[in-house]
């Protein structure tokens, strides 16, 4: 087995030439290659997520989904790449833009959609909604609504993994906007510190989609080289082009392994772009130009992966089939959600405490 790289920061950019030959991990090399079949599998999952998000957005417009709705469209390669390297016993935690993470970790899209619809068949019984998906069985320890608030939790979970003598790790996803919050600072510092005694196998995955709502990175901090901020905590790191699945996979494989082996935190800055509004209520997008969005749309991780697959000799018709099947799956999820019953009213008062406290109704 190739040992984990200890040499810190490494830049993987979309411009970097890629070895296109088939194959898997190559010993002693930074590059991981996937054959067309493997990539087709990833393509399928990414398309499924995208079409799930499209279906959810449509349902929101139809008034079938309430509250907030934050979709992941444009960023799929990031979660896809990293979650691919999870092992049994590993945990993830993320913010409210959490549909992809849940589904990629095995949550049933039907249950996820039903959650968005606020139904009793929802993955958290209709209690949490879009922002609070959990699939603890699959290691998905939740979506969280307070920007930055989940970051310390991920660090603590990583400590628990080591403390309990398990070899699991934590993948901790968070947005560029949350990096300027105190919760990140305190948690990253704890992680660095606990890493000194190998008690913090936590992979920090910064999903830098370049905006926190309407605030660009440039308007949120004077030091826009966000990944460098890891250095304040003694956390080694690297940057990856989050629009490029293969680049992400390569980094993810190595980084995940490294964290598992060292018990130390490691930092990722995955550079990507939100191709959609911040949330379903972000109508105007006054903070960015149509031109900018158009330019990034050209880097859409799904269409670029499709092009790559065609280059590799995969038939267009096969991709078409995948898209059609994914559409059907998303529609089915929506149908399931639509037809599911509302939660039973008795559910209002359950799950507040695990033990011992009678819970009073309104009135």
């Amino acid at each position: 087995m190739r040992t984990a790289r200890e040499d810190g920061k490494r830049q993987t950019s979309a411009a970097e030439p890629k070895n296109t030959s088939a194959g898997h991990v190559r010993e002693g090399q930074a590059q991981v290659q996937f054959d067309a079949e493997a990539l087709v599998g990833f393509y399928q999952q990414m398309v499924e997520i995208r079409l799930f998000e499209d279906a959810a957005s449509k349902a929101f417009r139809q008034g079938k989904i309430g509250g907030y709705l934050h979709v992941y469209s444009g960023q799929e390669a990031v979660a896809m790449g990293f979650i691919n390297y999870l092992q049994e016993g590993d945990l993830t935690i993320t913010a409210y833009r959490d549909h992809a993470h849940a589904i990629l970790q095995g949550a049933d899209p039907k249950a996820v959609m039903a959650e968005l619809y606020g139904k009793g068949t929802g993955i958290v019984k209709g209690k949490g909604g879009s922002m609070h998906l959990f699939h603890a069985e699959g290691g998905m320890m939740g979506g969280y609504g307070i920007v930055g608030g989940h970051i310390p939790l991920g660090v603590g979970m990583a400590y628990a993994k080591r403390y309990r003598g398990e070899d699991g790790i934590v993948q901790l996803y968070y947005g560029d906007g949350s990096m300027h919050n105190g919760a990140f600072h305190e948690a990253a510092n704890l992680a660095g510190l606990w890493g000194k005694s190998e008690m913090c196998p936590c992979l920090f995955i910064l999903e830098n989609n370049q905006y926190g709502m309407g605030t660009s990175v440039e308007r949120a901090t004077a030091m826009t080289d966000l990944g460098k901020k890891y250095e304040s905590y003694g956390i080694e790191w690297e940057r990856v082009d989050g629009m490029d699945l293969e680049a992400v996979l390569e980094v993810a494989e190595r980084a995940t392994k490294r964290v598992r082996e060292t018990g130390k935190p490691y930092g990722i800055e995955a550079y990507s772009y939100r191709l959609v509004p911040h949330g379903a209520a972000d109508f105007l997008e006054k903070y960015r130009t149509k031109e900018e969005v158009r330019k990034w749309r050209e880097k859409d991780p799904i269409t670029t992966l499709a092009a790559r697959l065609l280059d590799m000799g995969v038939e267009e018709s096969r991709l078409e089939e995948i898209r059609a099947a994914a559409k059907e799956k998303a529609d089915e999820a929506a149908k399931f959600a639509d037809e599911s019953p509302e939660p039973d009213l008795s559910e209002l008062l359950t799950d507040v405490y695990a033990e011992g406290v009678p819970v009073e109704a309104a009135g």
Partner: protein
Amino acid sequence: MAVMTYRDALRSAMAEEMERDESVVLLGEDIGIYGGTHLVTNGLIDQFGPKRVIDTPIAEGGFTGAAIGMAMAGMRPIVEMMTWNFSFLAADQIIQNAAKLRYFSGGQVNVPLVIRGPNGGGVQLSAQHTHSLEGFYGHFPGLKVVSPATPEDVKGMMLHAIRDPDPVIFLEAGALYGIKGEVPEGDFEVEFGKARVAREGSDVTLIAYGRQVPMLLKVADQLEEQDISAEVIDLRSIRPFDKETIVESVRKTHRAVVVQEQWRYFSVASEVCAVLQHEAFDDLDAPVERVSGAEVPAPYARNLEIAAFPSVEQVISAARRVLYLEK
């Protein structure tokens, strides 16, 4: 009088005072270029520029603290909490600095600061995004805490708040941003510490604040159909707390129901009960009834959320209970 929405009344108060007083600035997340998540500050950055309408990073503690520093150094900042749910991150700054600075400096500094934003539930934002924090902040001496429920009050109280030399926690009823109402022309203030009789009545006093006020007016209408005359009191000011208005009303009606979406325990409704039982002990013909939210974090699903908050039916039933018309 002009008819305008709660949102526009709020914006006009800030814009007008910014015109008048250069020391007034706004800080918050996406209040400028984005236009404000709830559009309360929409357009103000064009009018006043980015030095007066300051878009901040997502750092509620940091920018609230910075605003306290600005206030100590001669400015009159207005901080937008995008929603009050995020204010727990600024709780230390609000409670430990803003509220206490004047005291522990022996009067050497003031903190003329307004912190404002929407508060309360009702639009399926679920557990982390649904809080009604009147009692939470109202507990702390040094703060002034208000919760206006009408366009007129929100404008008049905002003008008062900006000019107030002390820190003001300005809890807007998010669910009411779109409601319309008459607002006096020109400059006017609504003073703090005075509850408002929103409707006069003689049989029972209904007490609330924020989005439960319009609900109580609806309840009063329905009670009228049952020949019950309900007086509706909008507390509006939480600290200072106006005991007189509610006590006076109960001296007349001898019965009271207090309604809040907040949780029951250690809350505004608890205080109303405590005050009434003390100040109107001999006047009360029935125990004061509380109608509060369910003792659960706010759920997402529509039906659960509705069930989590006080309903018209529950209030009517409470009113009938204090009148011994039902059990």
